């Protein structure tokens, strides 16, 4: 498998892991220095906003605490398409389009939950590529009741 293929597969496998609530599997794809954030620009207040921002340990705790909270249990399905991959030395900068769909548990109706982009930095030094940084850049900002699981 060539390097670009490996990088794309990492992005897609990260979606599968989160879709399946395989949080351990997701974190295994992440470097020890991993950082995750969700960001959006508000045209209303004309400012960038950071809605979630955690390092790897913070993500682990967030996942651990999930069952203790009351949450919407409707599953999300992430659909990513890798647009660009720029490899520089031991890292790759990846931009992927992201659409997230929400499926109701009762009846199974599916609606669009959000669109945005993954801006990933991927470490290439190890035997397999690993997520070093993920910024979920939201285009959608109105998401009803919101959600507890990161996108």
């Amino acid at each position: 498998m060539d390097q670009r293929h490996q990088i794309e597969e990492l992005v897609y496998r990260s979606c599968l892991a989160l879709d399946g609530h395989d949080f351990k599997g997701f974190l295994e794809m992440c470097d020890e220095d991993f950082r995750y954030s969700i960001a959006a620009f508000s045209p209303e207040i004309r400012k960038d906003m950071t809605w979630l921002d955690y390092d790897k340990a913070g993500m682990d705790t967030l996942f651990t605490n999930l069952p203790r909270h009351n949450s919407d249990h409707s599953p999300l399905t992430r659909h990513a398409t890798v647009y660009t991959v720029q490899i520089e030395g031991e890292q790759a900068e990846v931009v992927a389009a992201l659409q997230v769909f929400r499926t109701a548990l009762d009846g199974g109706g599916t609606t669009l939950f959000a669109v945005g982009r993954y801006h990933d930095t991927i470490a290439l030094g190890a035997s397999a590529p690993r997520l070093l940084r993920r910024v979920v850049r939201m285009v959608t900002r109105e998401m009803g009741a919101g959600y507890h699981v990161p996108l």
Partner: protein
Amino acid sequence: MVKNSAEWAARPKFPDSHFVDSRIYTDQVIFDEEKAKLFQGSWIVACHESEVPGAFDYRLFTHPTGVPLIVVRGEDMIVRSFYNICPHRGNTILYDPAGNAKRMTCIFHAWSFDTHGNCIDISRADQGYQNRFCKEDAGLRAVKAETGFGGFVWVNLDDACCTLKEYIGPALDMLEPHMQEPMEVFHFHKAIVDTNYKLWHDTNSEFYHDFVHYFNRITGMMQPGYFDRKYTAYPNGHASVGSMEIKYDAYAGSKKRAVGWPGLAPGGWILIDLFPGMTYNLRTSVLRIDTVIPLGPNKLMIEFRGLGLKRDTPEERAERIFDHNTIWGPFGRNLHEDLLAVCGQGRAMHEGTDSRWVIHGREENSTIHDEVGMRHFYAEWSKRMGRPAFDPFGEGRLLPARAAA
């Protein structure tokens, strides 16, 4: 013991002030009436002054009655508000939610307006209107606007309304010492959910629902001082909840808040609900403001704002943003739970579900799990609506059970 249909319909065994007929949340007639009787003449938060910092900066706001408004700062630095409706053919004048406009020009026929609401140009006026109509006849509809109580821009559609100060009264006195420094909005998002606006305001008016929040149970309910927090009711339907010290480090992954708030004890938390649907929520390091914009009996848009201090260093601001969004952002732990809960009410209580009553019966000496905040709201609601919330259609006043009528 389960109930049969008559028992389900029977009025609760509480005084009239301690329950409401659930049709006040579902009935279209009541909803339409609320816009006229509650929202039309109330002072409503449209935005914060930091959203229009410079001359000619504007911000759009959909008033809870449905009226589209422009909030704009003039070259004299005064903030004014107008209908965002062109007096010519009723078009929207400004489309983007915020911006800067030295003149506000309708895209349709290029009529232009200044920041005082005066029409300053009608394209080809002489040719079309001769001397029958001129720009002096074409001003915008001005709306009362005042800036205050933490630098928020308040609007009121009623030309004969009381002043903002009279409307708020002493309700925000508890917060005033903490709002002396200029603030700045760093967070804004809207949530559209299937529920009634009052159910959201009710949730902001009672802390008994802390049972829905794992975070609050751990950091608040299980900590000393929690059950000492008291409600205070104020004129015009406003109410406050006193402070306590939140133990943030009791939640795994959380920690003591690094930045505080001027004058507020570390871990402090003050919440003030303003009639008919705004909430000031100062929690340790951030101020959150909710504004309800009802879209239908079972459809609600809420505007959420998060504010820090204008003088924040980048590091302080980053801390406040983290503190805010960990709990109150769209992916925060508590906001999702609150919204989930009121959506559940909307699901169980929309027209046709045979929901009958909502009970506000807890009495605990006005402390944190007392439901006096909601009772106070509905006393004001009933007065302004001219309908008792427990019997809004005058059907069961003399009867023990509506089903028996």
